[in-house]
């Protein structure tokens, strides 16, 4: 029997969102359970995407295609490959966790809160599935709305400044992408992304298209110097918003580079790779210094995210130099795989760290590092989780944080010694800013009466942190299933990118 798995995974959470909204906050308890049930069902569907996925089979899986807007020759076309499938799995995995995390914490308009997350989930999955550029653009822009609402309604004190900044930044970027998409539609006669991949384009066209995409994706990643919306958005966002923002929304940028920039404009990507590598290294080094001096935990993790996402863009654009310097494709594959694994891993780790900050914020209503100290004395179980996630963030082997960094560093060594050298400084700096925070927040004598009165994590919190801890460790100890699932797709992508369109 044919089951449109991708459509289900998009529209099930969106329908769930409508249902939760209709239930309303007066029936909050039921609304919560429906939200959890829907998000879990979506996760089950996503697992089927993994099970039904043939790693050796190149091209798109689970393809659905039907006419959508005839006048524009635009189709409702969905499909996943080794790049998008893991990202969908990540999205569907984290949404139930966010729902559970907000279970008791969200008391104002709970139904709307959970509905917003379900809607967001459906739209995010839509972005990853869409094979039609117009459809992609619709999901891409629609995604901003629930995030805007989440930060604007349930956010902190300066939430309006943060939401406007977030919205303008990302919206501005998207406009350029739309222009590029329309231009290619006029060239190709359709909005099919796969047709765009094959579209012959001259160097000047490629450069302009690449830059248009770059503005859109660089803001999302975010890359230096268009990163300053992220710390503000994180600081003001509610915990769940921060988790989704860091874990999935940032990945949209990285996904965009793989789905659009590299395959559509391979020659421009090659000639502008120096720019991308330069910006990535600035993100890794500059941001590390900035992260070190932050006094707000959420800001620190936000800056750490920017540095870690620098590894993603580094991995994606170092491939040209890597291929040029070595005979085989192993180095470039390492870099691509590294970027992808880093995206998944960062989703888990940064999500977990934001949840940890949320756990403390729920109790003491402060994100300031200075407001804590000695949390391990009163919350030993929680402290164990924080230390684990902090070490994972510092790239400890045996956790997922190591895998991506390891691959990217190995891959960039193929390009140049100093490139790898600069990237590898994250070993020292990443440990410095993360563990220094741990030292000041978790260790030491009990800092104040607030800390003395803290209660350790409850069952609900233990459950979500435990699930994340297990997945961070599992991916670190045995990344092969993930790597294997992405292998064929990335190999094809590499071959495609290395073929000049000129």
């Amino acid at each position, binding site marked *: 029997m044919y089951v449109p798995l991708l459509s289900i995974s998009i529209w099930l959470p969106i329908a769930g969102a409508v249902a939760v909204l209709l239930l309303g906050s007066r029936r909050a308890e039921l609304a919560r359970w429906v939200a959890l049930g829907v998000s879990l069902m979506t996760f089950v569907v996503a697992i089927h995407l993994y099970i039904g996925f043939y790693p050796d089979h190149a091209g798109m899986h689970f393809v659905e295609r039907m006419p959508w807007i005839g006048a524009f020759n635009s189709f409702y076309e969905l499909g996943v490959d080794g790049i998008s499938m893991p990202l969908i799995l990540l999205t569907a995995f984290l949404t139930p966790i966010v729902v559970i995390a907000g279970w008791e914490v969200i008391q104002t308009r709970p139904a709307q809160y959970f509905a917003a997350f379900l809607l967001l989930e459906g739209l995010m999955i839509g972005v990853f599935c869409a094979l039609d550029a117009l459809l992609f653009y619709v999901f891409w822009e629609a995604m901003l709305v629930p995030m805007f609402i989440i930060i604007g309604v349930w956010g902190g004190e300066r939430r309006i400044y943060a939401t406007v900044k977030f919205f303008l930044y990302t919206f501005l970027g998207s406009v350029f992408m739309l222009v590029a998409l329309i231009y290619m539609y006029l060239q190709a006669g359709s909005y099919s992304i796969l047709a765009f991949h094959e579209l012959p384009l001259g160097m000047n066209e490629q450069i302009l298209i690449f830059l248009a995409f770059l503005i859109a994706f660089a803001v999302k990643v975010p890359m230096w110097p268009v990163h300053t919306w992220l710390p503000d958005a994180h600081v003001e966002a509610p915990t769940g918003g921060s988790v989704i923002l860091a874990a999935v929304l940032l990945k949209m940028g990285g996904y965009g580079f793989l789905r659009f920039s590299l395959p559509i404009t391979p020659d421009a990507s090659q000639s502008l790779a120096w720019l991308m590598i330069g910006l990535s290294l600035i993100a890794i080094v500059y941001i590390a210094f900035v992260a070190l001096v932050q006094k707000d935990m959420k800001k620190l993790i936000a800056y750490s995210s920017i540095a870690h996402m620098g590894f993603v863009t580094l991995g994606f654009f170092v491939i040209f130099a890597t291929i040029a310097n070595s005979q085989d494709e*192993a180095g470039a594959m390492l870099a691509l795989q590294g970027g992808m694994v880093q995206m998944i891993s960062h989703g888990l780790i940064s999500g977990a760290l934001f949840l940890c900050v949320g756990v403390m914020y729920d109790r003491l209503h402060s994100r300031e590092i200075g407001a804590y100290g000695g949390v391990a004395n009163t919350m030993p179980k929680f402290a164990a989780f924080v230390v684990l996630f902090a070490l994972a963030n510092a790239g400890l082997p045996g956790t997922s944080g190591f895998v991506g960094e390891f691959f990217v560093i190995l891959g960039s060594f193929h390009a140049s010694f100093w490139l790898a*050298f600069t990237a590898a400084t994250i070993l020292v700096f990443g440990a*410095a800013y993360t563990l220094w925070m741990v030292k000041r927040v978790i*260790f030491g*004598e009990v800092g104040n009466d607030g800390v003395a009165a803290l209660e350790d994590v409850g069952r609900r919190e233990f459950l979500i942190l435990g699930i994340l801890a297990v997945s961070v460790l599992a991916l670190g100890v045995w990344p*092969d299933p993930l790597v294997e699932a992405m292998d064929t797709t990335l190999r094809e992508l590499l071959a495609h990118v290395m073929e000049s369109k000129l």
Partner: protein
Amino acid sequence: MESIYLGIVIAPLAAAIVAGLFGRTIGRAGAHWVTIVGVAISFALSLVVLKDIVIDGAAVFNGTVYQWAVIGDIRMEIGFLVDHLTALMITVVNFVSLAVHVYTIGYMRDDPGYQRFFSYISLFTFAMLMLVMSNNFLQLFFGWEAVGVVSYLLIGFWFKRPTAIFANLKAFLVNRVGDFGFLLGIAAIVLHTGSLDYATVFGRAELLDAESIEVLAGRQWSVLTVACICLFIGAMGKSAQVPLHVWLPDSMEGPTPISALIHAATMVTAGIFMVARMSPLFEYSEAALSVVLIIGATTAFLTGLLGIVQNDIKRVVAYSTLSQLGYMTVALGASAYAAGIFHLMTHAFFKALLFLAAGSVIIALHHEQDMRRMGGLRKYMPITYWTALIGTLALVGFPGMSGFFSKDALIEAVHASTTFGAGFAYWCVLLGVFVTALYSFRLLFLVFHGEERLDSEARAHLHESPAVVWAPLVALAVPSVFIGWFTIEPLLFGEFFADSMLVLEEHDVLHEVGEEFEGSAAFVLHAFTASAAIWLALAGAIVAWVLYLLRPELPGRIARRFAPAHRLLVNKYYFDWFNENVLAGATRGLGRLLWSVGDRTVIDGAIVNGSARGVAALSAIVRRVQSGYLYHYAFAMVIGLAALIGWLILRG
């Protein structure tokens, strides 16, 4: 056999998980039983492996456990390599670990974190075993970092103490600097051999030497040299070589059992083990060997001197460890890898013994660590005293004791070496013998002999430590005395390490030393006549006796007389000062600068909010145009029309 190897690593891991996650359920006794049984199983199995390899002469095992990831044609796997070197290392690690587990029952008896502690030390044992049993660079790096993390957790075990959580962060970061080099070394190897597997990489060592890499513009360096030096930077972090040694003395903030297990016997020797394991690479790079030799010699001599001015009993032993690690490194640099590992083994026993003896004194005095408030403990704690004396004699190289064989052979080997820097290294290690004897006997005299400088309350409760504490001391004392005598011949001059180390003929200094070797007894006798080391050790002991027992007022006068030198030593050559004020200070300053100027003033202030203000300002101007008066609009239309017509005419 494969299941035995798996059992060796899984038993302590499982025990650590049980004690860590279910510590409250199984209780304190449950925690120590489960971990001790875990490590005991691992120890028993490693004895089986040792017998199998050494006595039965089983073939080297090199196999994969599971595939971690495959990228391109690079296979990344988890697997074991079991040869003579591995068999020896796992036995030593498990033996010391077992002794420390038992000792911990007594040492940590009153500590609220009892179960957590046992979980950590079992986890450490697992990580160390993974490191030494690895057959590839990936797993080596895993073990490498994992022992570092457990060390971090254990130094900061008493996480309420500000000094402890400062020390553990420092230890981790300094180690990370080393790991940074280590990872680049691994990357260089993967790039040029396409493999992480030891056997494959070693098979291509000579090819690596032929390839070159441009690190500095215009300078072509052999890939092998670059890779080896990078790997050695990792070893400098873990094995605390100058200038990355600064974390080890501070690590004494952790409980004493882990000082013995991690910061003396096992983890800090990982760097030594790694270089020995990589001998097929280092052998082809003269430059790398010279670096190893010179760094090791510098460490051996300079850190030994620091031991003389320390008053904290554990810190003296810590500086001694630094100095002895320097000795091992010197051996590696002189291509006497076997001598380095031999010293590693004897040192593991006698240094763990010394640490545990120090710990026994510390608990007897209710956590007093200052030697100026000790003295005359010999008659209160006879077992501790005698075992500490054995440890000291082994350390200074008393003829016939284990340390004598390893240190003398090492010095002879350096003497025979022709690698660049060997002359310097020889003098460092030779004079180091005097220094070693001086600080070792200073410790022994200040703690166990002379007048009692205890306060009266401490004296009232003073008694020998319980059996769980002294039994491990005795267990470690036995090999400290005897192991050298029985193992020197096969280990250094026999074929023991033939399957695990490679020494080129022109570097084979141990072969030269071995030509004059006529059995352990003759080696002892020979030392009296031909070696300066033994007389230097005696001189050190005598000087210590004069200074600290006969004329105790002398050290103070010497310190005043040579005040600048004394200040240099007390300030540990200003390494810490430099790191904390210059490096860490500059880093934080740069961070603040980049944040406040780069992010907030330029990007957010000028560009982001600036463009918002710009739009607002522009709108304010444009708004004036929309005045609402019809004649304004008509006027604008007329002007516009005139301009348009004018433009068309001029263009025409």
